[in-house]
């Protein structure tokens, strides 16, 4: 019997939009389409092979119809930037259950140019609208960032801890023409920048770009028959969870329980431990997030994340290379970055990354969504157990 985990389901196509960055001539919907067509070409498949569609942002049927797909399975799970991690998890369950054969997961967002996008901001009568937005807690930089000072002070960390994340990740992006920020920087330079929302300076906040990405999933059995079958990436385990959809209502501002729950389920379903992970993608809309994730997933103990990054363990030659595309802080961030975290994990596992880490066998992808509201986790491998 086919399982959703354990390597029975594979990513057989993965691609980003042909260009990323500033694309004022491309609508949100056509960013989905460009990414989807690239991913299908990567898989050696066409839209006629696809019978399942998952996306967030537009409705799933808007994307399937636009592409000429007639779906027999749809997933419009919307939990913000980690939606695509949940889509992979749900698609794997659907394929294992026989509800779909080939699932396309798409992301496209004109985050910078805002072409073909809906308006911003919460419903003013929602809890977020009434009790957060009225205080200027609406934009990501003035909302997602609010718990960080508490996190830092609880551990005896200073602002330097945030700058060290920026510097460590920038090194991965240096020279990558697709990265928005690709010149080296220093802790001093990052700290001296004018604040966007103190304690966060500009480079502690993600870039804002246009772009997209897509994934094609099918059974490992079918993957073996595809021309790119030897580049398949297998889903070993996954998890998802959610907490409060309002930053002010986090159960603990110094830790995010959904990271703990989703990651623990991903490791357990994969049947692996932390030491088995070769590579980590930790969704970094802002520089505090990888610190939360390192601790909440359990790669380090509470209070150990700052030194782990500062000592180079997440950099080149480190024991846990992290955010090897430069992350949302340096590579790209359209608004829902999770798709790009998965794309980089797939590239590393295929040996096709710009800054390739030697011998990556297992990659862990940790996503976050709607600020500190939702979490998704994936364990991916280039070997079927």
């Amino acid at each position: 019997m086919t399982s959703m985990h354990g390597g029975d389901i594979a990513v057989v196509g993965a691609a980003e939009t042909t260009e990323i960055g500033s694309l004022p001539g491309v609508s949100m919907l056509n960013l989905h389409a460009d990414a989807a067509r690239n991913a299908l070409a990567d898989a050696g498949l066409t839209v006629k092979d696809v019978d399942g569609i998952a996306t967030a942002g537009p409705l799933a049927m808007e994307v399937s119809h636009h592409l000429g797909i007639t779906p027999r399975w749809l997933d419009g799970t919307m939990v913000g930037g980690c939606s695509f991690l949940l889509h992979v998890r749900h698609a794997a369950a659907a394929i294992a259950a026989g509800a779909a054969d080939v699932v396309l997961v798409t992301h496209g967002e004109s985050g910078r140019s805002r072409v073909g996008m809906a308006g911003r901001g919460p419903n003013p009568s929602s809890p977020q609208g009434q009790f957060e937005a009225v205080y200027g807690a609406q934009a990501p930089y003035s909302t997602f960032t609010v718990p960080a000072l508490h996190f830092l002070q609880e551990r005896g960390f200073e602002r330097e801890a945030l700058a060290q994340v920026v510097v460590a990740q920038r090194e991965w992006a240096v020279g990558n023409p697709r990265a928005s920020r690709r010149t080296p920087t220093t802790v001093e330079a990052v700290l001296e920048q004018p604040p966007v929302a103190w304690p966060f300076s500009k480079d502690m906040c993600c870039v804002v770009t246009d772009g997209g990405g897509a994934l094609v999933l099918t059974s490992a059995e079918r993957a073996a028959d595809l021309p790119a079958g030897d580049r398949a990436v297998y889903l070993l385990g996954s998890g998802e969870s959610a907490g409060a959809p309002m930053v002010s209502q986090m159960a603990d501002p110094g830790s995010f329980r959904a990271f703990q729950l989703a990651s623990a389920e991903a490791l357990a379903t994969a049947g692996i431990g932390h030491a088995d992970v070769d590579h980590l993608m930790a969704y970094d809309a802002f520089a505090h997030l990888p610190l939360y994730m390192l601790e909440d997933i359990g790669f380090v103990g509470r209070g150990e994340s700052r030194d782990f990054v500062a000592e180079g363990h997440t950099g080149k030659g480190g024991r846990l290379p992290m955010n090897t595309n430069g992350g949302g802080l340096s590579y790209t961030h359209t608004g829902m970055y999770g798709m790009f975290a998965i794309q980089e994990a797939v590239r590393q596992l295929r040996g096709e990354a710009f800054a390739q880490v030697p011998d990556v066998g297992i990659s862990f992808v940790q996503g976050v969504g709607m600020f500190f509201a939702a979490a998704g986790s994936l364990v991916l491998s280039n070997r079927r157990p």
Partner: protein
Amino acid sequence: MPGPTPVPTPDTAPYWEGAAAGELRVQQCTSCGEHYFYPRPFCPRCGSDAVEWRVAGGRATLVSYVINHRPFPPVEEPQVVALVQLEEGPRMMTNVVGVEPLPDNLPLGLQLQVTFEQRGEFAIPVFTPAEAPR
């Protein structure tokens, strides 16, 4: 105009009516004793619908914040976007006002007192440093 205004629902109207009257109202569960925020017609801790409105004391502690330097029209920058914990227990988002928005003036743990900022027909609860330490 100093900032956005809320659109109340029937469940939250008593909160905003209280604010207009100079009261910070929160709900308390009479089954388990929990004070909770934001308003809803049942206790999020134990599920009981035996809940009542209370007038909070208005004292709070500064838990975390950012000093937003980006324009958030029509708000004048910079603005202290803060997470505070009421002495009754619930945490809420707010602004800290009445103090120059500098990190040295805003140590975590700072004791705060509620005050109200008039915006059109609404009074928005915000906080200012308490005059005397408790």
